[in-house]
């Protein structure tokens, strides 16, 4: 009787073990899925605990492509991000700096001749930089989406 009881108990425990193992598969997304976090600075966080896995620097290659390398489509989208993020940040930053300089010069008497050129040049740089940044952000969102999608397959 004791043997029978032990056998039944072990069967029950073994079945519950399979249940827990099966449940473990469900948490893949919770543990591994990525998300873009925007405050403060742009960064990539992973899982429900928001552990930071990548800080996206404007001035050097970010390593996003390496992070999502397990998914080919995500890696391709990450390359679009890498190609556009740094130039976009630099052009937009230069445009904002020139725009600030233009504001400073506009109050001087008499106005320096260069002040007339600063406004259109700065606006042009901001628009072009913004365009490149927009391409970069699209690539970033696509990369994260495809990476998370491929966690399923």
């Amino acid at each position: 009787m004791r043997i029978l009881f032990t056998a039944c108990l072990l069967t029950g425990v073994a079945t519950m073990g399979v249940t827990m193992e099966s449940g473990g598969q469900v948490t893949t997304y919770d543990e591994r899925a990525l998300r873009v976090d925007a405050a403060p600075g742009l960064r990539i966080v992973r899982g429900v605990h928001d552990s930071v896995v990548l800080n996206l620097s404007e001035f050097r290659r970010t390593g996003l492509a390496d992070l999502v390398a397990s998914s080919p489509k995500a890696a391709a989208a990450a390359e679009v991000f890498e190609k556009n993020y740094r130039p976009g940040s630099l052009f937009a930053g230069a445009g904002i700096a020139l725009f600030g300089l233009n504001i400073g010069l506009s109050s001087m008497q008499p106005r320096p001749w260069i002040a007339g050129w600063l406004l259109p040049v700065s606006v042009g740089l901001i628009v072009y930089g913004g365009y490149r940044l927009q391409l970069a952000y699209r690539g970033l969102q696509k990369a994260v989406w495809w990476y998370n999608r491929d966690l399923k397959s």
Partner: protein
Amino acid sequence: MLALGVTALTAGSLAAQTTGHTSAITRNQNGSPTLPAQSATKDSAQVYDSQALRFESRWGSADIIRGSKGEVIGTVGWFREFDLEKVLQSSPRALTDAQEFRVNNFRGSLVTAIGASLVTIGIVVASNNSNNASSPILIIAGAGGIGWGLQHLNRSYAALSRAIWWYNRDLPNR
């Protein structure tokens, strides 16, 4: 003793039933997944392909895009109205973040617009060669407003990103 044994066996059987019979047959003796598990994974990937959301920025706004084909289901952003909460209502945590997005996006849009207007007026006053003391005040106040507004817009997009992450996480078959 027999009753205890039956209870243990019943508990085991019930556990197997509640997880679906696939849990018992989805792995072979080596522990590698077999056809039913692969099928479930494929289903999950198909649901993600057709239902999962993301957003893509577009000149101060963001298109909400569904699925791998990139269907745009709405646009949010600078004074753009779209019932995001209705789309995300199937996930309670996504809904909370969507509400945070709505509040911060409105505040950020409003204050950034006011700040930009003040800066523009300040520049116009300063460039008219008039020695008006209000122009630096307008420009500084406007720049401050833009900074504060952008901070809220930044927060709003962080909330939007979280909301979509939770929505995708809570899709069925996950």
